[in-house]
């Protein structure tokens, strides 16, 4: 799993909660693609059609607040979102993202240096963000080595599998 991500930005506001990312009424859909079609639909109508593989999300404070539903992470991954950078994350979303190998980074001031559609380059291990469009730079909160390791492995279950094999 690469720790450097380059992608086009979708910019969102503060307090984008898990019900906005994927409303409860779609959680029971059995087809993951069908579920993902409804991601963020109340925030950006038609988001699922407009988003491209490799895009990244930049959000304000408290991204992913609310429910523990991991679908809030997996629908974004299914649509091809490669990273989320936010002023801050709600804790369960943050954990779920890392566990699923979706790189996330907290960066104070990110919203003021990024516009919708800009191209970003993000180095997760160093916590560095470069806006390729405006050439502005910004430093996020570096992840502890333990969490970088989880992203590098591609999620905590891959790590778990390794651990359990070692024990055998």
């Amino acid at each position, binding site marked *: 799993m690469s720790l450097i991500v380059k992608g086009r930005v979708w910019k969102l506001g503060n307090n984008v909660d898990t019900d906005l990312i994927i409303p409860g009424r779609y959680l029971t859909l059995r087809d*993951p693609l069908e579920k993902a079609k409804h991601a963020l639909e109340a925030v950006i109508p038609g988001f699922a059609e407009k988003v491209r593989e490799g895009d990244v999300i930049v959000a304000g404070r408290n991204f992913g607040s609310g429910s523990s539903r*991991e679908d809030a992470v997996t629908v974004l991954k299914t649509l091809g979102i490669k990273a989320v950078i936010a002023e*801050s994350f*709600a804790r*369960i979303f943050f*954990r779920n993202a890392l566990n699923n190998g979706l790189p996330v980074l907290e960066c104070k001031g990110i919203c003021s240096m990024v516009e919708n559609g800009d191209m970003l380059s993000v180095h997760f291990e160093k916590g560095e963000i470069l806006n390729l469009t405006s050439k502005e730079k910004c430093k996020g909160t570096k992840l502890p080595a*333990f969490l970088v390791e989880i992203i590098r492995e591609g999620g*905590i279950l891959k790590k778990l599998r390794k651990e359990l094999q070692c024990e055998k």
Partner: protein
Amino acid sequence: MGLTLAEKILATHSGKKEVSPGDIVEADIDVAMVHELLGTSGGVAELFEETGVRKVWSKDKIVALLDHWVPAPNVDVAEIHKKCRYFVKKHGLKNWFDMKAGICHQVLVEKGFVRPGEIIVGTDSHMTTHGALGAFGTGIGSTDMVVVFAKGKLWFRVPETIKIVLQGKIPKYVLGKDIILKVLRRLGPDGANYKAVEFHGEALADLSIDGRMTISNMCVEAGAKVALIPPDQKTIEFVKKRSKKEIRPVYPDSNADYVDEMMVNVSEIEPQVSRPPNPTDSVPVQEVEGIELDQVFIGSCTNGRLEDLEVTAKILKGKKVNRGVRLIVIPASYEVYLNALRKGYLETILKAEGIVEAPTCGPCIGGHLGVLASGETALVTSSRNFTGRLGSPEAKVYLSSPATAAASAVEGKITDPRKYLR
């Protein structure tokens, strides 16, 4: 330096004498709860089988049930339920309640799975509810649950703790819900993010276990990881009646280190209502009085307990729900349902032309039994009024205590319950 309650529980469960905020520890899990997220696509069962672990770590420490969409409203849900039942059988899980017990948080407490000083995790953000009994209850995602199923352990970052002191005497018409909505207003939507909340103060003694659960339940709306109320005699007696296991309560040290302290004078609290679309946007009821309603919902793991149905029945006694409104009442569990039936509360509600459904989350998650259409306005006692939470994203949802909700159902608009309770 002494330890806060959250720090102490994490220390005792990770074989350490001391821990400090920011440390990462691997802690033993006492109880793990799963509901429908066991069987959804990308849910715990799917991920667990993919990982290739053959056995769960404990057949006794996992509690599994169905509560969010019961009985199944459509084929998709029926298939999820089927998958859950298959997993439970295959792995021989002992504590399986199917759809016959009620909403997970209520059931966990009633059936004695929540004990002071223990760590209890579940695939549900409202696991903070269990802090009301002094247990480290916290919500986790499906992947973390797979780790728990495999190892019985999970990593935690030791959180900083905010101390909240509830001072003063609780007025008659103020319920746990009004207190927490007031606290949430001051914390804001991320005021307790990554943090533990610990409650203190003389007002706690006057709160029932039901009321305390409402308070701990909603702390997650400010991002809290756990919402602990140090156990007192009431807690111990309550748990003793329900759990045969030896109780080992844990208390915070008197010299514990808190990142922040908040004083709340409960004697000044008025009935609170949260405006859409955030639970923390609460205001005194007078500020929103008169807003016309299409639906009132009294239920959920936040406010579907016996005390909540009692105050509902008290207000509805001898009255009728306003013609323009539908009132939906859903007891949080079968125990609550049965007790409310015996005490005559359900009869009062039905006579007032309220609709009583069997225990489930139902409209709280926009699942079934009362989802909202576009342009509709509802007042509900559940925990969240996020856009689209109860159905259409074009519906407006306000949150309140069951007293405010019941009075509003009678009037057809948001109403101060004080005139009905004096």
